[in-house]
């Protein structure tokens, strides 16, 4: 009790100093002109479109007379296409590029050139791993906590014990790799998960067909497999369909990160009892506020800077715990979907 009291005092003190230091969240002035490009990994994926809706909402709210373009490469040309769009953005004197990076560090030189030309590069969803050529990363959730949430979902589905495997996107997807690492770490460090065994990590390339076949190969390879964890919306849906088609849902469950509208039937029939996701509209919205603040010079992008992002409230730029010398803004939290809330969310 005494300890608790002490903790309380400490917390109050910390809160006090925090408020003292960041007493005024910067209110962004609307109406400043700045052209921007929202650059997703590639076009045609629902979550990126949702991010665009969020960004357009913020764009209208801030009454930016410049244009916000939703511009992305075609799927087969993702890496080269992203680099090309980034390179052209600099010569077009764009105010900011809002990037969900699919090109790893290969895009860093182009992004750096853009920054040197005065274009701000704000990443979202998937950062530039080295942090080179990036103003700030708007993280959907803390990458470490995604690992814990996935480990917790596995724990609850497996009842604390059993074999699981991961079905990821592409082998070089920076965000998925970071989440899998975080999950591995959670599994290894917390005694709660000691009876959960991660047997394999395979890659479905974010294609329905490859993911479907990989999921089936996993159950063939590991006869005692109880769970497939897929941290990608394409993979989780394909895995759930594969288990359902082959009548394996009783034996092997599916979980991970998925869209309620795509997962609702699998959650209701028990193939995928639990999965999680954050709101991509909010992510687009927050990213736009950040980019607008930087591009219009109202934010400097320094660590510790706090600003108000419209309807979402106040956010602070901080050091990214996952990447040395990189900065992030943490959005969070995300929702875990089960039988109880998935139907409402799917509408």
């Amino acid at each position, binding site marked *: 009790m005494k300890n608790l009291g002490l903790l309380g005092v400490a917390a109050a003190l910390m809160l006090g100093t925090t408020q003292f230091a960041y007493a005024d969240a910067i209110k962004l002035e609307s109406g400043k002109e700045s052209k921007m490009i929202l650059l997703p990994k590639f076009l*045609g994926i629902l979550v990126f479109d949702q991010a665009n809706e969020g960004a357009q909402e913020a764009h209208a709210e801030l009454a930016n007379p410049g244009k916000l373009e939703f511009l992305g490469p*075609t799927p087969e040309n993702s890496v080269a296409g992203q680099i090309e769009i980034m390179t052209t953005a600099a010569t077009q004197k764009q105010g900011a590029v809002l990037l969900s990076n699919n090109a790893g560090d290969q895009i860093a030189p182009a992004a750096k050139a853009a920054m040197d030309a005065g274009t701000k590069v704000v990443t979202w969803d998937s950062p530039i791993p080295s942090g080179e050529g990036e103003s700030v990363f708007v993280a959907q959730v803390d990458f470490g906590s995604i690992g814990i949430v996935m480990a917790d979902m596995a724990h609850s589905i497996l009842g604390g014990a059993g074999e699981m495997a991961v079905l990821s996107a592409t082998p070089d997807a920076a965000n998925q790799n970071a989440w899998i690492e975080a999950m591995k770490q959670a599994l290894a460090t917390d005694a709660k998960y000691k009876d959960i065994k991660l047997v394999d990590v395979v890659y479905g390339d974010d294609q*329905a067909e490859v993911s479907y076949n990989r999921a089936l190969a996993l159950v*063939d390879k590991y006869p005692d497999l109880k769970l497939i964890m897929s941290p990608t919306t394409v993979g989780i849906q394909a895995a759930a*369909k594969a288990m359902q088609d082959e009548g394996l849902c009783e034996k092997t469950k599916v979980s991970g990160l998925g869209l309620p509208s*795509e997962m609702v039937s699998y959650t209701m029939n028990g193939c995928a009892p639990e999965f999680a996701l954050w709101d991509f509209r909010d992510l687009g919205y927050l990213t736009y506020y950040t980019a607008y603040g930087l591009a219009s010079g109202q934010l400097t992008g320094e660590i510790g800077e706090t600003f108000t992002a419209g309807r979402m409230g106040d956010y602070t730029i901080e050091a990214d715990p996952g990447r040395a010398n990189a900065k992030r803004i943490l959005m969070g939290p995300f929702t875990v979907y089960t039988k109880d809330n998935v139907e409402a969310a799917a509408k």
Partner: protein
Amino acid sequence: MKKGILTFSPQVLRILALVVVTALIVLFFASQIENYLNGRLFNRISSSVAVMALIATGQTLIILTRNIDLSVGSIVGFTAFATGSVIANNPDLSPVLLVGYAAILGGTFGVVNGLLVAYARIPSIIVTLATMALFRSALVEYSNAKSVTSQNLPAWLVDFPNQVVFSLGEFQFRAGFMAAILVVLTAHIALTRLRPARQFYAVGSNPEAATMAGIDSRRVILIAFILSGVMAGLAGFMFVARFGNITVVAGLGFELKSIAAAVVGGVSINGGSGTVIGALLGTVLVDLIDNSLVRWPVVSEFWREAVLGAMILIAVAADTIFIRRLAKMRAARAHEAAIAAEGAKT
């Protein structure tokens, strides 16, 4: 022994060789992977082959005429998405109309390719490289960043590929697989028995001679592209039925897999020789290896594509060497026969 080999045609020999290689590979993996040889393996491969077998059949027709079709993956993706959208918006549409829609849509893409190759005389590798990107971009535009999900599809469509037509013990013969086999067999019978279909071979093996013989080779090439489009369209229908969830990446990389299947199946890249049955076996072999490699811990994720590449090389190299030898043996035998005939005269 030599004489025994010579009595078979090269086509039959190729197919026999493929069957032997497939059996050897199955035996090899059976010794490496636990619980490998069972009905489940058959069910996996047969269901998975259903989509690619159709595309490989279309690709074979193209390769027979000395051309290549790199746009099949994009056609599959587009038709899969369009078919899914149409049935999602009109759930009461009859299955026959839906299949027809997929085939006609695919065929329309084939017309574009065929006209450019046959009448504008642009090399097929250039035309289809361009249309691969064009059709894919058309899909991105058409899809409007939405995806088709299995929730929006009627139950008959989603259930169709996995319906068991009949089973022999653990081996299930499912509707998707049977439908694909039916199409391949029809194509095979047409190619071997029907005079007009033989023109694909004529144009591919010797275009000048074919023209001399009064064959309109441009028309034949146009038809090959249309049929390849139709096959890709049917594969698109199968794709949406099997996977349910269609995004703009649907069918990505299928051009490479279908070419691999055809070439491994003994279809000569120089045109004029090969069978759709061979391409089907090639599809099975490629799929079998892909499926088994995932379960084989020795090869890592990153090397699987390399194995597919190596297979194409080995298949083409082996085929070239084998055909050259066969030609030599034939020549030698003809020579011996001539000498013998000479001897008999004197």
